[in-house]
């Protein structure tokens, strides 16, 4: 739930990194933590097990700077990816403003990715949130691994798109991050389909981490405007 605090001239927004266990959600936050100037970020809080698996969440507040006189602060959260922790995963979605789905590109993690995506839709629906109307980007992580599935295959399985019924939005909208690809387009069968934008990443090296964060931040701030 984004809060505009006119008293302290701050805008606070909540971003959640969602996805299957061991997909790289915490690694994304750790990279942001390492690369952002200490003066512009808070502590990285990790509620994890002794084996460093996320138990409840990781949390990192980042000050993006001042936009139109308002200090803009993003609160980055991860959820525990393991299936067992759905109760705590759902709690973290409360008041979310934008979501990054971190998928594991490895072929043998496809099923876990799909289960997690379905779980995200279900948990959002339980709060009455509509994921298709929310700032949402998909990150395909671990692109450096030899068993990484082709992007087209991942897109078909995890980001097939949803139908656009609002006629005012039924126009070809290019994906600003991928030349020659569209975010909204007409399917061969006639209906208009919208997909989330996606990013390829190797979070452990930092590749794609800030591209993803920048894209979702823009979507969140545009939604506020």
């Amino acid at each position, binding site marked *: *739930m*984004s*809060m*505009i*605090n*006119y*008293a*302290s001239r701050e*805008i*606070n927004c*909540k971003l959640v990194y969602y996805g299957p266990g061991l997909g790289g959600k915490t690694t994304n936050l750790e990279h942001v933590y390492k690369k952002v100037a200490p003066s512009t970020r*808070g*502590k990285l*809080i990790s*509620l994890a097990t002794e084996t460093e698996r996320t138990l*409840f*969440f990781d*949390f990192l*507040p980042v000050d*993006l*700077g001042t*936009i*139109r*006189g*308002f200090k*803009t*602060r993003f*609160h980055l*959260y991860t959820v525990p990816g393991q299936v067992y922790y759905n*109760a*705590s995963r759902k*709690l*973290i979605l*409360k*008041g*979310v*403003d934008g979501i990054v789905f971190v998928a594991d590109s490895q072929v043998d993690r496809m099923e876990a990715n799909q289960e997690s995506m379905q779980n995200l839709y279900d948990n959002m*629906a339980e*709060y*009455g*949130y*509509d994921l298709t*109307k*929310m700032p949402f980007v998909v990150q395909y992580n671990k692109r450096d691994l030899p068993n990484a599935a082709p992007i087209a295959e991942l897109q078909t399985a995890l980001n097939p798109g949803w139908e656009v019924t609002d006629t005012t939005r039924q126009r070809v909208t290019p994906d600003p991050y991928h030349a020659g690809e569209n975010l909204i387009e007409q399917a061969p069968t006639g209906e208009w389909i919208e997909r989330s934008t996606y990013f390829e990443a190797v979070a452990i090296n930092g590749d794609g981490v*800030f591209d993803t*964060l*920048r894209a979702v*931040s*823009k979507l969140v*701030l*545009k*939604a*506020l*405007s």
Partner: protein
Amino acid sequence: MSYGAASWSFTSEDQSAIHQVLQRFLTDSQAKCAMVVDRSGQLVTTVGDQPRFDAQAFASLTAADFSANDQLARLIGETDFNTLFHQGERESMLLADVARRVILVVLFDNKTTLGLVKLKLKGTVEQLAQHFATIGTRPARPEPEQRPLLGNVDDEIDKLFQ
């Protein structure tokens, strides 16, 4: 279904009114500090001794603590626990739900007692609930002329990431 969660705004007038209530509470209860945190973990305002710890992290953990305890309450057949108490050797904290919108966090030490803090808390929560109910009835998004102008901010966001 709605677009995610509604935004809400907190004005200087809201802050003055809430600070007034909390100042009185701190004087009456002799507690050190009162913080208001929203249910998604964002710090709204602080009154009294300014915390020496990371207030953002504290706020996010407070909301998580409250949410987890809400679920625990439901498991045992309660709708929620509307107050939580954490006792330390020197410092303690009392957390109270305010109108299901925000959480009031009170930090206090051995100069006062849990009984006194709890006694003064009840009326304070009621007053705050009235204020936040009013805030809640305002349009979720402020009037356009009051909103920060966030249109066409792509370039500015790009600069922030350089």
